[in-house]
């Protein structure tokens, strides 16, 4: 097992390398640069700035320099937020994005899972249809519609929650963003859970368990659920990576100081280091969560072995 994890980490390095290389050159092929402003900077100042950040060097040298810094854990300074390094920006914003995304994911897995099980147990009955309707609505209505509607009804009309802002992490400020992040995930989890649970409940070992006279609880939770968990786990991995690295829409609408906003802003401003930093962080999250998924596979399904 340990050996498997180690090997996976080693194979992750070339993947990361390819991603970094492609994004680096894709970013640089795009016209414009971090110091091309509409008003036009004094050419001497611009030349100085470019020299400080090594932007005057040939591209391959910049690339090697960036790789070298990256290996030493240095993401570089942000070009457009000159008082901060990329690492500092992430240290400030990432915990917030992780907290919101993590809460949304846990709640989505919990409630989506429960709804899916209920729907599977009462297949083709009103409870099932209610779950399917919720799931369809949740996965169809886009986040940028749900979020302002939430603000309109719950914040402005009913005044239960603030419209936006982080409020130093007050619980009441987190409700809106977490709910809007959760809803689409919950819908997908419920749908997946329903499907795999129906299949699991039809399998032979469940019939055997029932024939042996095990209690409903034991049959459903201990035996059927375990077999039904695999699709949920494989969905949760990439979903976790996406959620924890912040959502542009939710963070913009609710004015949350997370890291989700950086990506678009930085790409548009050609803030090369910040974009690369975001790409690397997202890639690392994706790789780690895919690894966790594979390990969980072995835990849930004893037929899966990594030797």
């Amino acid at each position: 097992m340990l050996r498997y994890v180690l090997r996976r980490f080693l194979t992750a390095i070339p993947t990361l390398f390819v991603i970094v290389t492609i994004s680096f050159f894709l970013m640089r092929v795009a016209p414009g640069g971090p110091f091309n402003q509409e008003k036009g900077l004094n050419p001497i100042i611009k030349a100085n700035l470019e020299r400080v950040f090594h932007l005057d060097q040939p591209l391959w040298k910049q690339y090697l320099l960036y790789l070298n810094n990256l290996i030493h854990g240095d993401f570089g300074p942000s070009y457009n937020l000159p008082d901060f390094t990329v690492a500092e920006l992430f240290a400030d914003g990432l915990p917030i994005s992780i907290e919101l995304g993590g809460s949304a994911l846990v709640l989505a897995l919990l409630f989506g899972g429960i709804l899916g099980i209920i729907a599977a147990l009462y297949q083709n009955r009103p409870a099932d249809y209610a779950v399917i309707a919720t799931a369809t609505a949740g996965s169809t209505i886009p986040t940028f519609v749900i979020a302002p509607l939430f603000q309109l009804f719950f914040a402005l009309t009913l005044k239960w929650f603030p419209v936006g802002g982080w409020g130093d992490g007050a619980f009441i400020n987190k409700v809106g963003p977490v709910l809007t992040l959760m809803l689409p995930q919950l819908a997908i989890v419920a749908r997946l859970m329903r499907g795999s649970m129906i299949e699991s409940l039809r399998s032979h070992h469940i019939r055997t368990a029932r024939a042996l006279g095990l209690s409903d609880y034991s049959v459903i939770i201990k035996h059927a659920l375990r077999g039904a968990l695999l699709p949920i786990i494989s969905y949760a991995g990439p979903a976790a990576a996406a959620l924890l690295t912040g959502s542009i829409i939710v963070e913009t609408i609710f004015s949350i100081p997370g890291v989700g906003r950086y990506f678009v802003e930085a790409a548009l401003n050609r803030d090369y280091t910040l974009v690369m930093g975001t790409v690397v962080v997202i890639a690392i999250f994706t790789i780690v969560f895919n690894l966790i998924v594979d390990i969980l596979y072995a835990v849930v399904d004893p037929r899966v072995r990594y030797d």
Partner: protein
Amino acid sequence: MTDVSLTPATQGRSLWADAWNRLKANKAAMVSLWYLLFMGVICIVGPWFTPHDFTTIYQDYTRVPPSLEAYPKANAIDLAVKDAVKRSRLDLVGWQERDGKVFITLTSAKPIDERVTRYIDRSDVFEGAQISEKSTDGMTMTISADVQKKYFFFGTDNNGRDLLTRTLIAGRVSLAIGLLAGLVAVFIGVLYGAISGFAGGRTDEVMMRIVDVLYSLPFIFFVIMLVVFFGRNFVLMFLAVGAVLWLDMARIVRGQALSLKRQEYVQAAEALGVSPGGILLRHVVPNLLGPVVIYMTLLVPQVIILESFLSFLGLGVQEPMSSWGVLISQGAKNIPSATWLLIFPSFFLTTTLFALNFIGDGLRDALDPKDR
């Protein structure tokens, strides 16, 4: 030997006729199909029949709430009269309304220039202003003007443009983009996937690794880079969006192609000496079409969401053109005071997405041969 009566062969049911029958039995899908058709027709034809143009700005009607009654409302005429008179720098004696006409009486310390009617005409509320009475010293004057009845069923936006017309125009743009980018994605995906699947071996390996790498790049990064490259050019950008979304299609088609290649009937056809083109037309294309059609209907809403998302970030369609995403993002910025700006476009977008999803699900049920 007895005569064997030859009963006429029963009419064979083709895959498509069969699928169509199954689809017709699916109520949600049929309702959605009609709804989508209706939405398409009103978005294409509607803007020609609404009383306003989508770029016309009515300065006197900024942010008026939706109403089935005609504007101006009673107190609005008063405001408009006072406003127009104030601009003319004359004194208002009084005004009255009689069968759709207003009569405004003005006075001044100096003789009044007759061109003063222009000030009245300039208001969006009045038209055809003319002098009906003039005192002999020229210092008092009564001007009559027609009150323009205007209907804003969905209200107007911050600039005073009719939201109904803008929503329909936006629908045209969103639906067209969905279809255009969807077709591009399907075209690239099918071509790439089919080549990869049929070639197999080393080619397949390399082509699929490329797809894997593209997959692992953050999607939004890719889209933003394309937007940066192509500028905010309408058509080019959506070709680019389509060019990003082909990855799933390529995987699906490749999988299908791989499994089709090993089917007995394909091998039988090969053994019987059917030409590769014949096999392709008779066996491969019909079997690929099902998943492609299903995926395409599910892709269109994805494209519409993506376009709305880009527009929401200000990267998509630019003013004065509009899309549902643009309208929703403007609505989201105005929710405390002008809720209709959010509600109407959201309703149009969401119901269309629902309809597309139901049709996609219905098609999947209708076309999936394993389900029979």
